[in-house]
C-alpha cells in the first residue's frame, strides 16, 4: 500500500526523482512528520478548515462520524472501514490516505518521468513509512524498475528482519539509512523500536553494499546533544565503508497532519531546529573523515 507518489523530487538523492511513499512503519517516532505513514491500513484524514458541511460523509453510515454545527466530528478509532470514504467528500476536507497499487500501477507512474531521470541522472526513491516492510511485491517492483535501467534509492530505518533487507541488495543503488540513536533505552521510548536491531543491520549492510548513506534526524530532547551525536557519528565512522552522513534538522511541518488524523503529537509546539545549529556536528563528522551535509 502506498500513500503518495511525488514526482519531481529534487532533494532526496541525485538528479530528478520520483518518490514512492509506502504506508506502514514498524516504528512510531514521536517526532514523525508523516504520521499517516505509520499505520499499515487506510487512514482517514479530516481537515476541518476545508469542510463546507456538504455532509456526504454521513451517507456511508457506520460509527465514528457525526455532524455538528461547525463541521463534522470524527472518532477515528471507531471507524471500521475508512476506505469507503474515498472520494466521498467533494471539498476534500475528508480524505483517505493509502491506496492499494499493483506493481504495474506504480511502474506506470514511474515511467512518466523517464526522460527526466535520464537527462538528470535521477531515478526512483522508495520511502515511507518503511518500504522494506512491504510484502513480496517489493522485490518484483525493484526488479522491474531495474530492468528499465532506472536508478533506485531506498530510504529506510532498517528496523526490519535482515531477510527483508537482503532481498533488495542486488537492485538498490543507494541505501539512505536512518540512524536515530545508538542507545537502546532512548530509542525504545521515542520510537517504540530496538536500536540493536538497527545497528546490527547497518553493520551487516555496510559490509555487503558499497553505497550506504547515513541520515540522522536531529531531534530536540532526543539526540540533539553533543554527546549523543558524537556516538552516532562515531558509530558511522566505525562502519568504515560508509563515507557520507546527512544531518536533517527537526521541523514541525507535520503538525497539521496529526490534527487531521486525530492523533496526539508529542512534539507539538516544539521549536524547529535550524540548520546552523548543526554546524558543530557537521564539523565533527568532517574531522572524522566523513562527507557531511545538513538540511533536508
Amino acid at each position, binding site marked *: 500500500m502506498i500513500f503518495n507518489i*511525488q*514526482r*519531481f523530487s*529534487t532533494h532526496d538523492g541525485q*538528479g*530528478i526523482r520520483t518518490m514512492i511513499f509506502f504506508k506502514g512503519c514498524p516504528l512510531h517516532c514521536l517526532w514523525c512528520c508523516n504520521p499517516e505513514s505509520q499505520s499499515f491500513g487506510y487512514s482517514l484524514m479530516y481537515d476541518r478548515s476545508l469542510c*463546507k*458541511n*456538504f455532509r*456526504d460523509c454521513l451517507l456511508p453510515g457506520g460509527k465514528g462520524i457525526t455532524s455538528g454545527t461547525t463541521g463534522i466530528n470524527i472518532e477515528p478509532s471507531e471507524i471500521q472501514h475508512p476506505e469507503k470514504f474515498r*472520494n466521498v467528500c*467533494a*471539498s*476534500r476536507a475528508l480524505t483517505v490516505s493509502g491506496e492499494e497499487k499493483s506493481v504495474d500501477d506504480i511502474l506506470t507512474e514511474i515511467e*512518466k*518521468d523517464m*526522460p*527526466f531521470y*535520464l*537527462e*538528470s541522472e535521477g531515478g526512483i526513491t522508495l520511502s515511507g513509512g518503511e518500504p522494506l516492510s512491504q510484502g513480496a511485491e517489493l522485490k518484483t517492483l525493484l526488479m522491474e524498475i531495474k530492468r528499465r535501467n532506472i536508478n533506485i534509492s531506498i530510504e529506510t530505518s532498517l528496523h526490519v528482519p535482515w531477510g527483508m533487507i537482503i532481498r533488495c541488495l542486488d537492485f538498490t543503488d543507494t541505501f539512505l539509512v536512518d540512524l536515530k540513536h545508538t542507545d537502546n533505552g532512548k530509542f525504545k521510548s521515542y520510537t517504540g523500536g530496538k536500536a540493536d536491531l538497527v545497528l546490527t543491520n547497518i553493520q551487516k549492510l555496510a559490509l555487503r553494499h558499497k553505497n550506504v548513506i547515513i541520515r540522522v534526524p536531529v531531534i530536540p530532547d532526543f539526540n540533539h546533544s553533543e554527546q549523543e551525536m558524537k556516538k552516532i557519528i562515531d558509530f558511522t565512522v566505525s562502519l568504515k565503508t560508509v563515507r557520507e552522513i546527512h544531518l536533517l534538522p527537526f521541523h514541525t511541518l507535520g503538525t497539521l497532519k496529526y490534527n487531521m488524523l486525530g492523533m496526539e503529537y508529542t512534539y507539538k509546539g516544539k521549536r524547529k531546529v535550524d540548520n546552523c545549529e548543526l554546524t558543530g556536528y557537521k564539523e565533527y563528522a568532517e574531522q572524522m573523515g566523513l562527507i557531511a551535509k545538513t538540511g533536508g
Partner: protein
Amino acid sequence: MLQKIKTGEVSERISILREKVLTTKPSICTERARFYTQAYSENEDQPVIIKRALALEKTLKGMTIFIDDGELIVGNQSSQHRAAPIFPEYAVDWLPEEMNELDKRPGDAFFLTDQHKEDLVDIAAWWKGKVLYDKGRALMSQELRDIQDASIIKATGNLTSGDAHIAVDFYKILATGLNGYLDEISHHHRKVKLFEQEGIRKDHFYKALTISIKSFQAFILRYQVLSIALSKTIKDPVRSEELITISNNCKVIAEQPPENFYQALQLVYFVQLILQIESNGHSVSLGRMDQYLYPFYKEDILKGKITNEFVAELLENTWIKLLSINKIRPWSHTRFSAGGPLYQNVTIGGQTVDGLDAVNELSFLILQSVGRMKLTQPNLSVRFHKNISDKFLNECIRIIEKGFGMPAFNNDEIVIPELIKLGVEKEDAYNYSAIGCIEIAVPGKWGYRCTGMSFLNMMRVLLASMYDGLDKYSGKTFHKGLGNFVDFNSYDDLFRAWQQQIKFYAQKTIEIDTVIDTAIEEYVPDILCSAFVDSCISRGKTIKEGGSKYDFVSGLQVGIANLGNSLAAIKKLVFEENKITKEQLIHAIESDFEGREDEKIRYMLLNFAPKYGNDDDYVDILLRDAYLEFIKELDNYHTTRYNRGPIGCKYYAGTSSISANVPNGSVVPATPDGRKAFTPVAEGSSPSSGTDVLGPTAVFKSVAKLPTDKIMGGVLLNQKLSPAAISSDSDKRKLISILRTFFTDLKGWHVQYNIVSRETLLAAKKDPENYRDLIVRVAGYCAFFTSLSPDTQDDIIARTEQTL
C-alpha cells in the same frame, strides 16, 4: 526596491539614462498626428500610398529631435521620452472620449496636458469617418460586428493599430546601406510598364518607397547636424568628442553601409525607431541580433577598435532607448496587453544553418547587458537547441534568477523541422527568430502577424455548444447547434456539438481577419517596412499585397486549459460515473455555483475530475482532440495574399494570448471546470491557476501532448518559481536538466519563468511606490508589475508557484 542595478555594475551615464526613462511618466505627443493630418489634407488627390509617404516625410523632417546628455545611441520617437505618438489614421475617436480618464486607468495610465487634449479634439474632428477602424467596421457584415460586440471574437486591436509583428532584414540593411535600397528601387522602378494598370500601381509604390527612404536619410542627417552643433557648445572635451563620433556615424549610415560595430548598432536602432513612427503596430522585433551584428563586432575587436566594456555600454544604451518608445492603446485593447508593452524582441542563440551552435561572445554580451538593465524592453528570447552549451544555459539561468522574467526559451528542435515541413527553405528555417512575445518568423522574409490576428474565446464556444448554439451571455444564437446539453446522451453528443460550433467560429475568425487585412491593405499601407522585407521591392508590392517571401499567420485561442478541464469533468462525472446529472451541472453553472448544492457540484468538478497540467492522459487527450477540431478547420482557409506571391498564405493555431486571459475571462459565465463566472481563464497553454499539483515535469508532459507542431503561433507556457527554488548550483543544474528534457525529448515549444516570491508580489501590490521596477512575466512578455491593473496582478499572484 527602485534602482536595483548595483553601483559599479554599469557606468554612471547608463545609470542616469536608465533612471531618467524609468521615472518619466508616460504621456503622448501630438506632433506626428499633426504632421500626418496636414499631409493628408494637403494631398487629398493623391493615392493613399503617396499620401502616406509624404506624411512620413513631413513628420521625419519636422518633428522635434533631441540628444540626451551622455547618450551614445541617438534617435527619438517623439518629442519626449515615453510620450506615445498618435496615429490618427488607424483610430482616433477613442482619444477624445477616453482622454480625461487616461490618468485614472487602473493600469497603463497616461498623463496628458491641456494642450494635448485640445490637439486631440482638433485632430479627431478632421479624421471623422476617414480612419481605418470605421472603414474596417463598415466592411464587416452585421453578423461579424455582432460576434465581436458579443466578445466571442476580439480583433479591435487589429483595426485601432497597425500590423507589425515583424522583423526586417537587418543582414541586408547592414550590407547595402540605405543608398543600396535607393539603387534597387530605381532599378525596378525603371522597368515598370506604365501602359498596364498594374504598372501604375507599382509606379506609385516605387515613388512612395523613394520618398520614404529619402526622408529616413534626412532624419538621420538631422542628428548629424544636431550632434555637431551640440559638440561645439559643450565644454566637456570628452563628451564633445563623443558627439563628433555620433555625427560621423550618422553621416555614414544615412547613405552607406556601416563601417563598424557602433555604426551598425546605431543604424539598427534607427530602423527599429522609424518602423514605429511609420506604423502603430507593435512587436516590431530586432531578430537575431547576435548573428547579424557579430561580423562587425569581431572585426572591431580583432583590430582593437572596441572593448567589450564599450560594446556592453552601447547595448545598454540601446535597451534604454527601446524602453523610451511608447504606444497608447484604447482601454479595450489595453486590457489585452497589460503593462503597455511594445514587445520589441531580441533573439539570441540557436544554430547556424549547418546545425552548429550559433552562440558567440556577442550572445553573452547581449544576455548580460539585458540582465544588468532589468527593463521590460527588449523582450529577450533564447533559441534552445540540443547542442547548446551548459555554459550558456547557466548564464541564462543566472539572468532568469534576477527575477525580471527573461530570457524566454524557444525550441529549435520543433520549430525548424516544422517550418521546413510548411515549405520554408532550410536556410531560412535555421534563421528564424522570435517575434514579439514568443511567436516566430524568418526575419525579413515573413509577412505581418505571425500571430496576433483574432482572439477566439474558446469557452464561449463550448458553452454555445451546450445550449444549442445559443450564446447565453449576449442572448444571441449565431449558429444553431445540435441540441441542449440536457438532451445529450453521451460525451460523443457533446463533442459533436463542439465540432459543429468550433468549425463555425473558426470560419468567423478568418472572415474577420480577411476584412481587416483588406482594409489595412487599402487604407494604411506601410512603405518603409515593405522596403526592408524580401521580395517586396522586386515584386513591386507592399507586404499586405503579397510582397513577402513567406506568409503564415495565426490568431489566438484563449482558455485552452479550461476547455480540457471542462470536457474531462463532464465526461467523467456526468457521463461515466453519473456523479452529477446533466440538469445539476446546468443549474450549477447558471447559478454560478451559489447555494450549497451548486457549490458542492463546483467542488466535485474541481476535485473529482482530472486537470490539465498533471500529465494525465484522460484530460490531456480530450483537450488535444478538441483543439484539433479547430486546427483542422483552419486548413480550409487562406490569407488575402494567397496566389499573389508568398509561399504559404496559411493559418495555424496560436496560444500566445498576452494578457487576454483576464478580459476574456471577464465575459465568460461559470464553466464546467468549476471556474466561477467572469474570473480569468487560463493563460496561454499554461494550466489553470492552482490546478497543476504534480510539479513542473508533469506540466511539461501535459503541454507537450498538445499538437504543438500545428500551433506554430506559439505554445506559451509560464512557470513561476520562488527565488529559493533556483538559488543553489544544484538547483540550477536541475532546472537546466528539465529544460533539456522538455525541449530535446518532449519537443516542447516554449517556456519562460517568473522568479518572484508570492510575498514580494503581495507587497508590491500594497506598496507600488517602492516596487516600481519590479518586473514580472505577464505572458509572452514582461511588464512592470505596478503598471498592471489589480485584476491582472491578482491573476499573476494566483498562478502556481512551483518549487524545485
